[in-house]
C-alpha cells in the first residue's frame, strides 16, 4: 500500500490534501480486494497449494488490525484536512471583509478627492472672476471682463449690462450676442430688469417669480457701495448647459458686489 502518499506536505492546499487522502483510500480498497481474492484462492482445494503462508505475506488474522490502523490514520488526516479547510475559509472570509473595507475606503477617498478638486476649481473660478474685475483699468475693460466671465464661466452667449439712470430707467451699456428683440432701454418699473434694479435682488428663472421674458435666465443687480448701479441680464445658456449651478450663483454674488463700481458715473 502507498502509505507514503499520506505524508503531509507543508503548504499543500486543502484540496490537494483531500485528493491525497482519497487516493490513499483507493489504494487501501484495492489492497483489501487483492487480499480477499488471494484468500479465496487459498481456500479452494488444490494439492499444489500449501496451507502455510508464503514468505513475506501477512497472516490472514493480521488484516483487520492493519485495516483498522489504516482507517484510523486516514480518519485523523481527514479531520485534520477539514480543520485546515475551516481555518483557511475563516481566513478567506476575513480577507474578503478587509478587501471590502479597503474598497469602501478607496471609494470614500475618491469622493473626497473629487470634492476637493471641485472646490479647488470653484475657488479658482471665483479668484479668476475677481482678478479680472479688479485688474480692469477702465469701464471698457471691466465690461469686457464681465462678458468673459458670463461667456466662459457661467456659459451664456447672450448678455446685456444695463446702467441705472437717475430717472430709474435702465440703458444698455454693453451687450454681447443680443437678440434683436432685446431692448436698449427699460423705463422705470418696466419689466423684470427694472424690478431687479429697484429691489436690488437677484432674479433667477424657474424660482416661481413672474417674468414677462421666457428667455431670461438671470438678472443680477450690480452694486457699488451697496447701491444698485446697473443690472446684468443673462438670457439663454449654452446648449450643453441645461441649468445654473451653485458656482454660477457664487459668480453672480461676485458680480453683484464687485462689478457695479464700473457703472457709477465716477468710473467713466
Amino acid at each position: 500500500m502507498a502509505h507514503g502518499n499520506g505524508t503531509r506536505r507543508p503548504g499543500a492546499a486543502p484540496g490537494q490534501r483531500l485528493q491525497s487522502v482519497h487516493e490513499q483510500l483507493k489504494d487501501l480498497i484495492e489492497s483489501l480486494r487483492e487480499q480477499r481474492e488471494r484468500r479465496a484462492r487459498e481456500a479452494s482445494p488444490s494439492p499444489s497449494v500449501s496451507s502455510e503462508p508464503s514468505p513475506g505475506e501477512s497472516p490472514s488474522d493480521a488484516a483487520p488490525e492493519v485495516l483498522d490502523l489504516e482507517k484510523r490514520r486516514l480518519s485523523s488526516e481527514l479531520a485534520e484536512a477539514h480543520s485546515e479547510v475551516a481555518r483557511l475559509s475563516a481566513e478567506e472570509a476575513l480577507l474578503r471583509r478587509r478587501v471590502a473595507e479597503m474598497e469602501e475606503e478607496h471609494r470614500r477617498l475618491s469622493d473626497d478627492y473629487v470634492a476637493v478638486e471641485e472646490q479647488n476649481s470653484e475657488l479658482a473660478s471665483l479668484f479668476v472672476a475677481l482678478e479680472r474685475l479688479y485688474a480692469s483699468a477702465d469701464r471698457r475693460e471691466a465690461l469686457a471682463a464681465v462678458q468673459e466671465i458670463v461667456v466662459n464661466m457661467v456659459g451664456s452667449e447672450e448678455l446685456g449690462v444695463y446702467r441705472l439712470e437717475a430717472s430709474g430707467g435702465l440703458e444698455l451699456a454693453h451687450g454681447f450676442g443680443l437678440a434683436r428683440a432685446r431692448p436698449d432701454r427699460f423705463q422705470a418699473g418696466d419689466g423684470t430688469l427694472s424690478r431687479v434694479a429697484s429691489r436690488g435682488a437677484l432674479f433667477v428663472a424657474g424660482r416661481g417669480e413672474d417674468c414677462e421674458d421666457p428667455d431670461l435666465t438671470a438678472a443680477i443687480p450690480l452694486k457699488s457701495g451697496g447701491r444698485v448701479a446697473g443690472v446684468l441680464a443673462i438670457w439663454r445658456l449654452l446648449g450643453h448647459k441645461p441649468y445654473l449651478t451653485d458656482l454660477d450663483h457664487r459668480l453672480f454674488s461676485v458680480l453683484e458686489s464687485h462689478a457695479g463700481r464700473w457703472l457709477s458715473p465716477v468710473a467713466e
Partner: protein
Amino acid sequence: MDRKKILLVDDSSTVLLMEKMILSKSPYELVTASDGQAGFDKAIAEKPDLILLDVVMPRMDGFEVCRRLRERDETRGVPVIMVTTRGELGSVETGYQSGCTDYITKPINGLELLSKVKNYLGE
C-alpha cells in the same frame, strides 16, 4: 525628471488664467498663446507634450491650427484637446475632422480638464 509641457491657446485671458489655475497644481510647464497663429508658431517652436486649443480665435481658428499641426511631422502626434463653447455634435465632428484628439466644453470643469490632460500625458 523633465516636466511635461502644455501649450494653452485662447484669446480670452479669463480662460487662460482659469486653465493656468487648474493646471498649475500639477508639475507642468505651461506656455500660452492668445491667438491661433501665435498658437501654431509656439506649437512648432516649443514642442509641447499637449495642446489645449480654443476654437474661435482671431487670425486663425482652432480647427485650422489643428489641421496645420497634423500636416507637420513634428506635431502630428501631439494630443490636441479642443476647448469649445459649442458642445453640439456638428462642432465636435468638425473638431475631430480637423485632427483633434479630444474636446472639452466651456465653462471648463476643472476636474474634467485635469483628468483628460493626465490621461493624454499618460499619468
